[in-house]
């Protein structure tokens, strides 16, 4: 191996790396909120309404989770003509929401039938039942798989570079093309992704504890 390492480029380009990290975080945070919202809505749509409406939501899920994300990014960006950030945001949110919908649907299905019956006999309407009885319990149960989906979202956000969004992976290519120090840049970015994933794992344990304690206290 005749490659000379020059780790000092990382210092020279730390601004670019930081900007990339922040851009990744911004995209991920906004898309996560949107995809949880869409996902929960879809899960409700697949669990409670009459069959025809259920089928509609099923089509949404099956279509958008079986088309590669890069195709969706290109579609929103080049066919629909959205700006770079909105295109990345819509593509990521829609793709991730299909996975979250399936997770939440499983969570809803895991709530025992007796609870619905109890709620009904206490005179609750369907909306009350879903909002006050089923969803709170279902959402707590799905926190661990949601965290995995969050990590997947972080990873998929790297695809936004292909439509020109200057996030973390984009910074690697920028440094590589300006200094030919791709190895050092890729190492730094890889470490940042690993750290992000570790933070998510730790945060999940913390949140899960907090929420479960809260529930036990009533």
């Amino acid at each position, binding site marked *: 191996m005749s490659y000379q390492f020059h780790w000092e480029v990382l210092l020279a380009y730390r601004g670019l790396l930081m900007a990339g990290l922040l851009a990744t975080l911004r995209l991920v945070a906004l898309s996560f909120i949107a995809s949880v919202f869409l996902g929960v809505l879809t899960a409700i749509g697949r669990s409670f309404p009459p069959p025809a409406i259920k089928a509609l939501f099923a089509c949404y899920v099956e279509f958008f989770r*079986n*088309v*590669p994300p890069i*195709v969706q990014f290109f579609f929103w960006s080049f*066919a629909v003509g959205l700006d770079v950030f909105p295109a990345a945001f819509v593509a990521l949110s829609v793709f991730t929401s299909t996975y979250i919908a399936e997770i939440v649907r499983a969570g809803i299905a895991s709530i025992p039938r007796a609870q619905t019956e109890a709620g009904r006999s206490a005179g609750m309407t369907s909306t009350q039942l879903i909002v006050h009885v089923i969803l709170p319990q279902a959402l707590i149960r799905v926190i661990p798989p949601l965290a995995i989906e969050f990590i997947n979202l972080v*990873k998929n956000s790297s*695809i936004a570079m292909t439509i020109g969004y200057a996030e973390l992976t984009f910074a690697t290519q920028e440094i590589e093309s300006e200094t030919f120090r791709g190895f050092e840049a*890729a190492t730094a970015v890889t470490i940042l992704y690993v750290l992000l994933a570790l933070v998510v794992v730790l945060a999940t344990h913390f949140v899960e504890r907090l929420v479960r304690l809260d529930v036990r206290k009533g």
Partner: protein
Amino acid sequence: MDFGFLRTNASYLFDGFDMTIFLSVTSLVGSLVGGTLLALLRLSPWWWLRWPAIAYIDLLRMVPLIMVIFWFFFFLPILIGAPVDATVAALAALIAFNSSYMAEVIRAGIQSVPRGLVEAARCSGMTHLQCTARIVLPIATRNILPALVSRLVALVMGTSLVYIIGVTEFFRAATNVDNRVFRPYEIFGFVALVYFALCYSLSLSGRFLEKRLARGEAR
């Protein structure tokens, strides 16, 4: 709507599709072999085999596929001191990446085999290797077939990302056509439909297998 480009670029797009299938099949076979090996190392009783496998699996599962593709494209040549074809780099990246996911699926399968079966096999005089090859792996395979199929769908979707290092698979071919004829709605809609047909039929066959296997279990 003008789908004329489909007729004039049919053979070009078909070559791209061919490449997508080639990348999918080759990296599926490669990552099944790699994943099985990693899973066995991961379950090894010796820490000096187990720890490197854990580190490899967990590291690759935390990094985006695009990064892995970059790694192989830029650093395989440095590592081996000779230029590397983009297709080779793409295949190496896809296999390295998917092996780590396959390893976790296969490990779950191996651990789902009841301990009693293994003990019975060992008691009847099978060696550790014989027991692994004839008892554990066949039963594990049956248990994880549905999970493997959903990994396969992710693997097929992942091949579209080698676009970034210039391998002309289906998605790259389609964007190249778009650059010439500029019909983004029709082209990306068409690409989405083709991938959907491919991946959804795989998902469906996975569900079908799941049902079939569940029936076998009950008998």
